[in-house]
């Protein structure tokens, strides 16, 4: 039986925007990770807005200690809107840069500047 966490119930608001609320979700997931063997379902039902600030401190931070493969086996997502998925992907991309490539985002910045010129 999978554990399910309802994000809205943890943060007590439909706006998953503040980093402190992300930390609440991170703590809950971290507790569950220690005891669960089955994937944990993260349910975004009722969440209407998200920011990368929220995802940075709730989910992308796990990339500091786990590989993408491990996290894909630990977490499944439900009721994640397309815009929240966009935010989460951006957050994950930035975390990969930070944690996997020596803490530097210089490569992407160079690409961005190339785009602008």
């Amino acid at each position, binding site marked *: 039986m999978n554990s399910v966490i309802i994000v809205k119930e943890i943060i007590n*608001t439909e*706006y998953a*925007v*503040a*980093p*402190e*609320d992300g930390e609440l979700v991170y703590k809950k997931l971290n507790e569950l990770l220690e005891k669960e063997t089955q994937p944990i*379902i993260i349910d*975004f*039902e009722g969440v209407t*807005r*998200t*920011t*990368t*600030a929220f995802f*940075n*401190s709730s989910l*992308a*931070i796990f*990339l*500091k200690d786990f590989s*993408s493969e491990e*996290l*894909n086996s630990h*977490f*499944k*997502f*439900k*009721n*994640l*809107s*397309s*815009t*929240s*998925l*966009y*935010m*989460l*992907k*951006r*957050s*994950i*991309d*930035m*975390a990969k*840069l*930070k*944690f996997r490539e020596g803490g530097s*985002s210089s490569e*992407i*910045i160079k690409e*961005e*500047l190339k785009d*602008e010129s």
Partner: protein
Amino acid sequence: MCSRDFIIVDMPEKVANSSSTFEHLLATFKEISYLEQKSIIFDFKNTNWFDANLSAFLGAIFRYLLSKKNKVFIDNMSESISTILKKNNFLKTFSLEDAPDVYNTTVEFRVFKQENRTEFQSYIDENLIPKISISMSEGFKSIFSSALDEIYQNARTHGESADITACGQWFPTRSIVKFTICDIGVTIPENVGRLHPQYSPKEAINWATQYGTSTKPEGISGGVGLDYLKKFIRVNGGKLHIISGQGYWGYDGNITMKDLAGYFNGTVVNLEINLNDCKMYACESEMGIIDNSASGDMMINIF
């Protein structure tokens, strides 16, 4: 400016979204920021134009002065400017009367406390987004709104600001919406300077506007708010200004940077959106990715 029992601050002829206005206001702020328990009069006798979104900037200065036990007054304000600042709730916030916004052109002046995590999002959705009458998909509106919220979250957490002020104005005849978010707290050059002491104030702001950069603590990656807004502004033909510490950074497709003579111990993010823009805005996630939110299907392999 003179001093006896009170201090008079002369406001410039035009309070507009321009580097000369910001330079004037920063120079003024530098002179008065040390004052405590004084009566300070902001004299508008020379002022014939006021971009209402800059109420957020002026409001942040007022609140800073009030926190130092000063009294703040407004004098010689023209009827037209006074009417705008009544409509957008600015004067009411400082215990002066308000006026009805008959033409619904204002984005209300609002003060947010640092501990308020979510109210800004509904403020944006209800007050600003409806004024931006360009063609945007629901997904794009949502991401645009979240990008602004990222700026607010930065002000709360990076700026360590007790108050964050915001205000906007729709100018129907010029087809522009202007919006400003302002905080008084730790500046961008201060935050960036801890990681990159070699950067001048303007360079520090430029660094902060780039994708993925962050001065957040170890383990937390950066945000995308400024980067997203910058990309939007480039396509939209609008403008983005940031003033923080002594740094000024402007963007209208090209970057303009200056280190100013004045100093503002906080950050102003100032956005101008061009409504004469016929493009249709949508986000990548609406193109080809199935939205599972409606079906409730499980999504896997996100990392």
